[in-house]
């Protein structure tokens, strides 16, 4: 018999005080952001979001931040933790040093405290037409699309994005050029380009294959490193580069192919 009495962690018994430095900013009152420090009694099983919720509930009701699901699904709790883009409901206190600094996501304007203004992202996302653009108008009589498991597997991993924006906070090109369409939006464009039901690649290319699209990426790969859902936007962008290069030369050699394709699909809506 083993001498160990239990292999289960004893929940609630590992107390630890974390020193948490939080960026505060209220555009109505503050000229510039400042840091406020809280001492938070935590348990090792907590995630960073629990720490921030503790501050809100027990120490300072004025702190503003976003969260909803507490299970890495809604994508709203992304913040910088010790300078790293972090999904705070999915990273544990036990992996943190005694002192942490929590800031709003980098590369976005701060709306208030830990909340960023993500309007620019929403605009970029809709610019890549992230929906199925079918070749022909489909009626109810036509029935549903059919798709093989292998065809589903082609794009499945790119559907996992939760729009948490960690990749935008990590990307040095977004930092250098705020107009760059960016990792998540391009990965989602790729998700639809790869979908067997979709015929909209050439329509999306107006934005996706422009200088502000994939070509602004220099394959640093930071987006894929921080992505909590393993979407791998860096790989998506490189794959689009290859496809867009092929399309470019085909359109160059056979200009009539492109115009036909684009007219059909661009009447299908979007902005």
């Amino acid at each position, binding site marked *: 018999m083993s001498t160990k009495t239990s292999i289960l962690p004893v929940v609630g018994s590992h107390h630890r005080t974390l020193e948490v430095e939080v960026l505060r900013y209220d555009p109505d009152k503050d000229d510039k952001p400042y840091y406020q420090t809280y001492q938070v009694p935590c348990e090792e099983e907590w995630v960073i979001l629990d720490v921030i919720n503790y501050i809100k509930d027990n120490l300072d009701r004025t702190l503003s931040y976003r969260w909803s699901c507490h299970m890495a699904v809604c994508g709203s709790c992304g913040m910088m933790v010790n300078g790293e883009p972090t999904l705070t409901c999915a990273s544990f206190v036990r992996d943190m040093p005694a002192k942490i600094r929590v800031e709003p996501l980098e590369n976005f304007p701060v709306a208030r405290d830990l909340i960023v203004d993500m309007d620019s992202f929403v*605009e*970029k996302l809709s*610019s890549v037409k992230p929906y199925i653009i079918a070749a022909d108008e489909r009626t109810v009589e036509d029935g549903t699309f059919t798709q093989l498991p292998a065809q589903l597997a082609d794009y499945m991993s790119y559907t996992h994005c939760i729009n948490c924006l960690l990749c935008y906070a990590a990307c*040095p090109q977004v930092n*250098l*050029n*705020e*107009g*760059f*369409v960016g990792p998540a939006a391009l990965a989602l464009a790729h998700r639809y380009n790869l979908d067997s039901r979709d015929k909209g690649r050439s329509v999306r*290319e*107006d*934005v996706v*294959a*422009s*200088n*502000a*699209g994939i*070509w*602004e990426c*220099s394959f*640093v790969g930071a987006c894929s490193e921080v992505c909590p859902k393993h979407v791998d936007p860096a790989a998506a962008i490189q794959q689009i*580069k*290859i496809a*867009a*290069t092929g399309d*470019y*030369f085909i359109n160059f050699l056979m200009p009539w192919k492109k115009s036909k394709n684009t007219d059909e699909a661009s009447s299908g809506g979007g*902005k």
Partner: protein
Amino acid sequence: MSTYDPNVAPKVSNKPIIWSLFAAGGTVTALLTPVLVLLFALAVPLGILPAEMFSYARMESLLASPLIRLVVFGILFLSLWHTAHRMRITVHDFGLRSDGAAVFVFYGLAAIATIVLAVALI
């Protein structure tokens, strides 16, 4: 540097021209550099292969074949343009925001080197 602006119709970029050379050059160098390192930094110094195998005379006689000259030209041409584009991106990543100057200098050097290569090999 180009910026996405919802009010301006974006234009498909002509980057594929240079990027296809960049990608092909990257692939070629990634495949060939380890071979060169293996041959010239390990195999010959360690005496696994005799140095005479790579003597000047032998190398020169290899280049007598037009096909080999063309292959060598292709490899060097792609590596050159890969390097030129890589340098342009590196300069950009270091925060030097004069893309036009980088294009002029690096692509210019690559163009000159391409001409020299073509004259020497073809």
